[in-house]
């Protein structure tokens, strides 16, 4: 830490700052390259379908199960709180609004980052370590067009679908606890929910959120993999960084998007 006597390591601070700015610039260039080279993957949709299977279909179980449980917990907690004010019939509103606006997009994005994002980073990092990416370049195949872009689009497509499944599952979880188990009136559960949840204001904004999270998570995961030092340690560090950075990015972006969207008409 302290080189040269007692002075603070100013050079170290400077180096770290410049390094992180450089890395951010490289990440932005990487993002632009990915978008520009996505033509190939759209001409060969089979590449995207393959990645949709790995990032979307394989994340399905964890998303569905956690959606159900989050909804059931919301049902219990919401009922406990609403009961004190004698408004148990608003349980449907509480469950649906909190899922569609916040929990659906955010929790499914966090799960997606740790389930699919880390796998993407590890896969691409290992491809780089075993010099498969360099081999592709030798064969005049652009690794960004062939490896990165299909994964990017698969992530961007599957994220809103997963978030919608999470929210729908959660609403039925809340229904299971609220109506079936506790015995809140079924009619008021659904009708109050329908009059409170607006399609454009709530559902579409939730989908926009998950779309943005999809872009952020896949971008971070792919970049960390692509930029990972070609060692076993490097790949493991990159995988950890993917989960940490994308979780922070999701929560930060969520705050910004919420501030824009729901400012109270």
């Amino acid at each position: 830490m302290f080189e040269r006597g007692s002075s603070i390591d100013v050079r170290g601070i400077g180096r770290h700052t410049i390094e992180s700015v450089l890395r951010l610039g490289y990440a932005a260039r990487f993002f632009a390259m990915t978008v520009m080279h996505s033509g190939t993957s759209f001409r060969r949709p089979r590449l995207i379908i393959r990645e949709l299977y790995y990032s979307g279909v394989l994340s399905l179980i964890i998303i569905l199960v956690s959606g159900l449980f989050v909804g059931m917990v919301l049902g219990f907690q919401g009922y406990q709180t609403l009961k004190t004010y004698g408004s148990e019939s608003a349980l449907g509103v509480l469950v649906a609004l909190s899922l569609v606006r916040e929990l659906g997009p955010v929790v499914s994005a966090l799960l997606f980052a740790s389930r699919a994002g880390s796998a993407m980073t590890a896969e691409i990092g290992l491809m780089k370590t075993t010099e498969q990416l360099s081999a592709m370049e030798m064969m005049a195949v652009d690794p960004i067009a062939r490896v990165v872009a299909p994964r990017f689009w698969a992530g961007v497509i599957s994220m809103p679908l997963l978030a919608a499944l999470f929210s729908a599952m959660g609403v039925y979880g809340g229904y299971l606890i609220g109506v079936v188990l506790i015995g809140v009136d079924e009619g008021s559960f659904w009708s109050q929910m329908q009059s409170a949840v607006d399609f454009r204001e709530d559902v579409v904004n939730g989908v926009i959120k998950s779309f943005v999270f999809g872009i952020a998570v896949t971008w971070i995961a792919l970049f960390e993999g692509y930029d990972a030092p070609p060692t076993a340690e490097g790949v493991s560090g990159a995988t950890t960084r993917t989960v940490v950075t994308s979780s922070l990015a999701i929560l930060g972006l969520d705050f910004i998007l919420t501030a824009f969207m729901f400012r109270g008409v």
Partner: protein
Amino acid sequence: MERSTLDLWVGLFVIAGIGALTILALKVGNMGSFAGSDTYRLSAQFTNIGGLKPRAAVKSAGVVVGRVAEITFDNDKFMGKVVMNIEKRYKFPKDTSASILTSGLLGEQYVGLEAGADDAMLKDGDSIKLTQSAVVLEKLIGQFLYNKAAEGGPSK
């Protein structure tokens, strides 16, 4: 994993995702009950709209018949103009009156329509002439105090 099995799974995944979105739109949201096409617009001018907000309910006899679409300020008459989307299947006579009411003591404000007896019906783009503004609590308290003072004055 064979290609066809993989395609099948991805197809199922996409269908399930779109299905979930449809559930959110129709069962959870209000797309089912108020599609944009089968409504008509009515407007009404109020001297005070109180805390009425866009998307608030429009009720007649307690039944929701539409939603408030937009609220603007009419700079010629210095009144608040409320535009409402009413479902097509509900028709109201020309001399219908609109008032801004509150559900419960502290509940949300909504527009209440009271049907008149005219034979002619309101059409798309018409405006409701008879309106009653929102009750503003401060004014009500002020009036009450003023009346009390007026009552107490002469007897002293």
